[in-house]
């Protein structure tokens, strides 16, 4: 049985993004074989016209629906992040670590409800600081949004890159 097919089945049936060592545990293949299989699968999926891709988020890998198909697929899936808090989430990710009071200046009083929702979803965490709360993104933030980053700094950098890309496109 070819190793990339075993890994394909593993990724398909994994409940959340997985690391190489988790794949190792499940498949009893060695890490070099797994990395090679992941590379092969990523070439196979990501460069094709398929609706599914294999994404890398720092040390984790996940099979997921490609961006352009998210909308039709999302209707049958069980999405958890309300669309209207996405703006607050991306602002926190961009300015982090950022005081909630600063965020209030940016988005107004809805920040309290948004932060509550994002905290409950485990996407953002707050730490008391200077009579306010300092907000940062979590590991789950990286996984949920499929960002290839290992740290908050990398999340920030990734967002900056996206913004530069967007700006370059628009006239």
């Amino acid at each position: 049985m070819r190793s990339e097919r075993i890994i394909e089945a593993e990724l398909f049936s994994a409940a959340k993004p997985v690391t190489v060592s988790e794949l190792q545990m499940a498949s009893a293949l060695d890490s070099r074989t797994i990395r090679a299989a992941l590379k092969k699968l990523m070439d196979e999926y990501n460069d094709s016209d398929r609706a599914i891709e294999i994404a890398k988020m720092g040390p984790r890998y996940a099979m997921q629906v490609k961006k352009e198909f998210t909308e039709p697929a999302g209707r049958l899936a069980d999405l958890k992040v309300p669309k209207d808090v996405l703006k607050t989430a991306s602002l926190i990710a961009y300015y982090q670590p950022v005081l909630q009071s600063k965020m209030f200046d940016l988005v107004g009083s809805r920040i309290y409800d948004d932060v509550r929702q994002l905290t409950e979803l485990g996407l953002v965490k707050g730490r008391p600081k200077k009579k306010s709360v300092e907000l940062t993104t979590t590991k789950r933030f990286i996984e949920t949004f499929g960002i290839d980053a290992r740290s908050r700094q990398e999340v920030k950098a990734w967002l900056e890159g996206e913004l530069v890309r967007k700006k370059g496109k628009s006239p």
Partner: protein
Amino acid sequence: MSFTSECGDVLNHLMFHKAIIEEDSGVGKEERLQHYLDMVGDMQNGTLVPSEDPFERSVALVFELVVNNQMNPWDINLIEFSKMYLSRIRKASELNLIIAGKIVYMAWEILRLQSEQVLQRVDRPEQVELMFDGWDPDHLDLFLEPFELGMGEMLLHMDEQPIQEKVRRKSERPVTLVDLLDAFEDAKRESDIRLELAKFMQKYRRPEFDDKAHKENLEEDIALVWERIQKCGGGSVPICDLYAGGKEDRVKVFISLLFLARIGKIHIWQEKLPFGEIFLEVKVPWDIAQLEDATVTVAAKVEEASVVK
């Protein structure tokens, strides 16, 4: 399908799990699975001898239920299974409540997960939602100076955010027979710990009062106080009339009155809190109390009733 072929399914399931165990795998896991295999094998041949051990009997019951109800060992419906298991052990002479509890708990966990998913589906916000709904554009202009916005300002005005929740597959694995047996093992471990703990407690228990003597004393006290109440006649009686001197006697009277009130022989009330006088009145059964001239009968009836159950 016959009993034999149903047993075959369970045997195959157990054999698969035994096969994937490595040679130096978990302590006793292989023996445990072999033991289960033997058990189901004996069941198939009709040669299974009921065990003395209640845990063993509980495990045998699991196999029996799975086989007789033609349940798929790869996909046990825990809700159904726990119902059957509970109704079976209710008939059995002794209950293994820890094991039964574990199964119910597993079933409950699964139900809860399912209902959470339903709730999440219900909670999902409408697809079409205004991105700026609830944003306060007037407020946005007031504050900008102290905060270096940089490129992040773009985020404020973008219709489509660069981040987007990824759609992944929700992966679920059905509960298998081996999961169930593992839960049993846990339950056994927990009950063993409890047994050990109970032994320990027994051994190092603080020497206590002799319960029996204590109880007899209390009964005597109550009878004595009841006698004193009888002497006071009908109507409300201040409890100080019952005291016969000494702190100990007061405690005895007070405790006995509490008991008498609790078993419904008397009413107790206090006129003024917290230091006011406490009164009591003997309760008269409702049917007799309606007779106006029944004082004698009442006294007799009350005396007939046993003071202490």
